């Protein structure tokens, strides 16, 4: 049997089995889901190759699936992180209700992502895209449709994206009489300038929604924060990368064939939008008090970097963007798992109430620490490699003001990075979390694997450069040179990551052993109340935590930037959209099944009347 079809079928079957097996035992449902994703991953890594092509005929349509170097790298990312997330999910979701529903949608999302990556034609791409959209929507509303109507917001934005894509497909079809992605790539150069501009705008809108670029990001923070954390790990880590996947095809493969100047404008505009997105989202992340929201805004900011890299479009920039995309999937997946673990053990994710969990959950802290170091882009972990390449590509391609925005965002990212670690794991012990324990091993394991991956890719980025280089040559950027542990830019400057990690590890071990840990046994491990308080002995319920308004001075400093202008703009923008699309709510009942029904009806119409519409 064809392995691609096998993967899709395993995931589909897993989804259905997981739904059914909930009746036997809720736990079993999660385990089935995990096994399905694991076996799909095994098939993907050991059987799948780029020779296989699946053709499914539906009337006059032929859905074509295949695998190439570019989609392989995204596929690998999806499979690894989905496996980890589903392993994490077993104990995280234990005891919650409607597990069958959750696991069904979880598996369907993974299936849809793999489907998107396998698709060689736009129709199957679109079908899977919509499956992904509504399965994720169903999980957003898993906790109930709460205040803010976030599910609706997400649905509206996804609908904008979906319609934009659909329109683009129709236009494409009318131009080249083919739905194949490769056909679009090759014939794009022949389109008229207006057509190129229109197609560009439509596709960028479609992908921009999923990857949360600025005007289209409104749904993201709440949607990421409100889903169950084991799903957000792939929602923020992977689903958004599908937008990046599309951006990659569009910006690198398709637009590079354009001769018109309009596309260049798109690139610059997109790069600036992405940079501004990352700065503003970072500022918003800094002032959050809820760990989930913080990570959600941080995701938007990080996606801004990735889109920026793709929009710049030099070899180094694309490499940086793809590298960062993979790193982001890993560290953000791990961080959402960390938050999930904390939420499971304590019940809350409010950083003003949590504290000193490092004493209770050291392994979780360890994973969080490594992921945060990678997120902040500090050497020697993987995040640094991506950040370095991004900056080098910005500066060698003369985007000297973009680099300032990128640096501003990245420096401000230290603020929320520390806030995250401090708010949850450090600081004062809280009495209500006295009896918190470390999470079970199956939850620790995926977090540790994630953080170890970061160390490996930070030391040997070449492990990723190799598939990335072949992916880029598939997109038409051949001849990408790479080295196992040497980063270099167009000006001939380089950083040797192996030397970096050697230096860091040797010095750290020496210092830690001979100076730090030598006398550790002789010292006394004391509570966080045993601190210098001017001789006063703090009583049991005395509050010594500094957690509320943690970055008040910074907020005051950026107040002119944040004041009213952006808030007002975003709110009005969101309100305006909500009002404008109010009539959609009568069509879209907010019930995913109705929506799915519409899509299917539409596809049926498309298939049946395709002859009359297009020819």
């Amino acid at each position: 049997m064809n392995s691609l079809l096998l993967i899709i079928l395993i995931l589909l079957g897993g989804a259905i089995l997981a739904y059914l097996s909930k009746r036997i035992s809720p736990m079993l449902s999660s385990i089935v889901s995990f096994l399905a994703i694991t076996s799909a991953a095994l098939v993907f890594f050991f059987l799948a190759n780029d020779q296989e092509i699946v053709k499914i005929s539906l009337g006059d349509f032929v859905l074509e699936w295949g695998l190439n170097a570019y989609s392989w790298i995204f596929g690998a990312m999806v499979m690894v992180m989905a496996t980890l997330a589903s392993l994490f999910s077993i104990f995280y979701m234990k005891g919650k209700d409607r597990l069958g529903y959750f696991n069904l949608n979880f598996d369907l999302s993974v299936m849809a992502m793999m489907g998107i990556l396998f698709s060689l034609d736009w129709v199957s791409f679109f079908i899977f895209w919509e499956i992904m959209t509504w399965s994720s929507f169903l999980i957003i509303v898993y906790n109930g449709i709460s205040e803010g109507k976030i599910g609706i917001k997400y649905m509206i934005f996804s609908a904008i994206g979906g319609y934009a894509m659909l329109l683009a497909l129709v236009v494409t079809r009318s131009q080249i009489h083919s739905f194949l992605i490769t056909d679009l790539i090759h014939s794009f150069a022949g389109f008229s300038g207006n057509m190129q501009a229109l197609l560009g705008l439509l596709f960028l809108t479609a992908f921009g929604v999923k990857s949360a670029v600025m005007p289209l990001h409104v749904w993201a923070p709440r949607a990421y924060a409100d889903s169950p954390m084991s799903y957000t790990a792939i929602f923020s880590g992977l689903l958004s990368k599908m937008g990046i996947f599309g951006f990659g095809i569009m910006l690198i493969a398709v637009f590079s064939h354009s001769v018109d100047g309009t596309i260049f404008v798109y690139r610059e505009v997109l790069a600036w939008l992405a940079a501004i997105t990352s700065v503003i989202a970072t500022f918003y992340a800094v002032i959050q008090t809820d760990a989930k929201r913080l990570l959600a805004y941080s995701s938007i900011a990080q996606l801004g970097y990735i889109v920026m890299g793709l929009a710049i479009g030099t070899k180094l920039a694309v490499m940086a963007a793809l590298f960062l995309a993979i790193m982001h999937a890993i560290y953000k997946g791990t961080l959402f798992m960390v938050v999930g673990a904390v939420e499971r053990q304590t019940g809350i994710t409010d950083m003003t109430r949590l504290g000193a969990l490092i004493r209770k959950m050291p392994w979780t802290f360890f994973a969080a620490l490594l992921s945060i170091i990678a997120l902040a882009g500090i050497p020697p972990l993987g995040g640094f490699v991506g950040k370095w390449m991004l900056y080098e590509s910005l500066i060698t391609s003369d985007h000297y003001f973009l680099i300032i925005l990128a640096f501003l965002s990245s420096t401000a990212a230290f603020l929320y990075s520390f806030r995250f670690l401090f708010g949850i794991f450090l600081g004062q012990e809280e009495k209500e979390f006295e009896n918190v324990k470390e999470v079970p091993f199956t939850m620790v394991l995926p977090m540790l694997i994630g953080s170890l991956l970061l160390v490996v890719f930070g030391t040997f980025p070449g492990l990723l450069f190799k598939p990335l280089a072949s992916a880029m040559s598939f997109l038409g950027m051949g001849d990408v040179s790479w080295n196992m542990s040497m980063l270099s830019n167009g000006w001939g400057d380089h950083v040797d990551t192996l030397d970096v990690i050697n230096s860091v590890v040797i010095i750290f071990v020496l210092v830690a052993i001979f100076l730090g840990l030598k006398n550790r046994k002789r010292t006394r491990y004391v509570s966080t109340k045993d601190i210098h308080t001017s001789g006063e002995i703090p009583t049991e319920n005395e509050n010594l935590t500094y957690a509320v308004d943690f970055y008040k001075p910074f907020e005051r400093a950026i107040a002119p930037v944040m004041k009213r202008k952006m808030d007002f703009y975003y709110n009005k923008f969101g309100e305006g959209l909500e009002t404008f699309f109010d009539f959609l709510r009568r069509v879209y009942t907010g019930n995913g099944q109705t929506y799915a029904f519409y899509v299917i009806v539409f596809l049926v119409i498309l298939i049946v009347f395709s002859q009359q519409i297009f020819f």
Partner: protein
Amino acid sequence: MDTNSWISILGFIATVVLAFTVGVSYGGIVRKITARIQNRVGPPVYQNFFDIFKLYSKSTAVNHGWMQHLGPAFAITASVTSLMFIPVLNGQGEFWFANLNFKGDLIFLLYMMVFGSLGMALGAGQTGNPNSAIGVSRGLSQMVGYEIPWVLALVALMLQTKSTSITGIMDYQIAHGTWMMFESPLAFIAALMAMLGMFHYAPFDVTFAPAELSSGPASEFGGKYLAMMMTSGSIFAFVKLALFVDIFMGGASNLIMLVVKTFLLYMVPVLYGIVSPRYRTEQSIRYFWGWPTLIGVLGVLYVVFVR
């Protein structure tokens, strides 16, 4: 191991010893100068050696967890690693202080330097002292302030020399027979203003403000921990000064020139600090995002359009 690697290991050690000695002596000199300006006699210049040695010999009675142990270790690691990637002297043939300086570049260094602050911040966070957390919050906020003009200055330099590595910038200066502080003076001014914040002297010392925060992040660090933080701070001071000398003042061809140049440079934040009061955090952020940033932008534009 062959002879070469032994020599390079000796070179590492020599560099660290040099950086430590110079950094600690500068600390002592600063105390002396401060004292003289306040019409005091002041401690001897070797006072800081005594302090650090004494602190190392103190016992450590309590700990608040393993992050408190590792925090200062992070700080030293970051400072020594950054030191390894900085050319102490210019010229290719230098034998002792070559280290790894062809293996890294400016952007790497920017991030490596943050590593130490983050480690220290985590160590301070573990202790649970609210003063530490307030200090860290202020320090990180202030860092966002001064990084902007600093990066603008570096971007101007990189654009002009078409290189992001320190050795590349030094080679450019040698090849053109000039110093970058004369080649792009606006960038130099912006960087100098950013440097005021980098050294955490007044008016930008709100992070450690002893009068209000009981020494901020270091509140719970005594004895060995404090000694490690002082060591790391001294090495960092040297690293920053050497970096400045390398990229703006054409590097130094021998140790005496290095000491003279770094000392002159060091006097800028020190003398400015002695006569200054203290800014609040948001004031200092606004300061850095005001004139220094404007000058930095002008510096970049100058490089792009004039040069």
